[in-house]
């Protein structure tokens, strides 16, 4: 008799649990549904360092091994599975007693930095410190199609006389996302 009762209890529980599966409580409660597009976004960039050394007032320096112009110096490779847009942004140049800020044209304690634009065949892509700007759009996901780029730095037209001359540094961020 006890065995039959146990079996009966188990069957009732099984039916209740199966009904839970068929009519999930979550379907009527507030929820968030997430659908993933599982494709890989990935890029690499071949050159990660830039040592300018000491620079003079109004110096022009290029992103290359010897600070001279080389428009194909660094290579961005799309190693993901989707075509990608790559954007660029810089930071202010910090260090010592005075920081340098970015501007469209250089000035006192102000520098300009532009990336090479293949279409315009000139350094016209502003590497701003306030927002990201496209450097290459719709880079194919072949893994072998690279984008060569470089940058041109225009130094401040004047340094503050009280500047202590200590080294300054900055970073450049390349950010990639799926092209749509």
């Amino acid at each position, binding site marked *: 008799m006890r065995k039959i009762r146990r079996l009966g209890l188990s069957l009732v529980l099984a039916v209740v649990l199966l009904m839970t599966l068929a009519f999930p409580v979550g379907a009527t409660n507030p*929820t968030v549904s*997430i659908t*993933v*597009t599982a494709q890989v976004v990935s890029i690499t*960039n071949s050159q990660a360092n830039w040592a300018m050394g000491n620079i003079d007032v109004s110096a022009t320096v290029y992103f290359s091994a010897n600070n001279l112009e080389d428009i194909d110096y660094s290579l961005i490779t799309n190693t993901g599975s989707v075509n990608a847009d790559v954007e660029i942004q810089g930071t202010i140049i910090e260090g010592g007693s005075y920081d340098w800020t970015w501007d469209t044209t250089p000035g006192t304690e102000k520098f300009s930095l532009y990336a090479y634009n293949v279409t315009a065949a000139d350094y016209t892509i502003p590497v701003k410190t306030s927002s990201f700007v496209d450097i290459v759009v719709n880079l194919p996901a072949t893994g072998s199609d690279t984008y060569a780029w470089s940058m041109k730095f225009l130094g401040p037209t004047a340094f503050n006389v009280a500047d202590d001359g200590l080294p300054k540094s900055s970073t450049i961020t390349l*950010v990639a*996302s799926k092209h*749509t």
Partner: protein
Amino acid sequence: MKKTLILIAIMLAVTAGVYFGIGHFRTEGPEGLTVAQAYHIWASKQVAAGNLGGFGILESEQDLIANPGGAKIGTITIFNTRDKDRTFWISIEQANPDKLPTGYECLPTKYFNWFTPSGWDGSRVTAEPKVVVKAGEYRHVSILVAIPTNTDYLNQPAELRVRVTELSGGFQITALESRWYIVVVETPV
């Protein structure tokens, strides 16, 4: 009685497994592959391209349909190649207003607190959205998506970005973004 309790426990465990497996968020690789399979394909591609350095994220886009008061954990999967361990920072960023799908807008920044990225220290989720991925491994990052009950931001499709930034890059830093699309609707989803 003991046997009955064991039977009930087993049934509850199976039910919970099926329920959460079918009805809830899962991460799969491209074309239904598992994450591990997707990683091996991606890693092979890095080798084939002669490019052993770098990292990637699996989820290029995510669609979210949400109700006020709803909550869910989304994930980003970070792949790392075999050259070195890498440290990443996870952040919520504004979408590019020039690249929005038709009918979408940038999710206003005042709603960014709906999204809470969390790191992973190998054994538990941490409050800090920083994650270390060892060479040749991949790791999931959790992002809690919680919509306030009384939100007034309804029925407007919006885009935001989840950015994964490598912190050990030196002068040149590389970051990858997943495009997240969200719409909050009152009708239960």
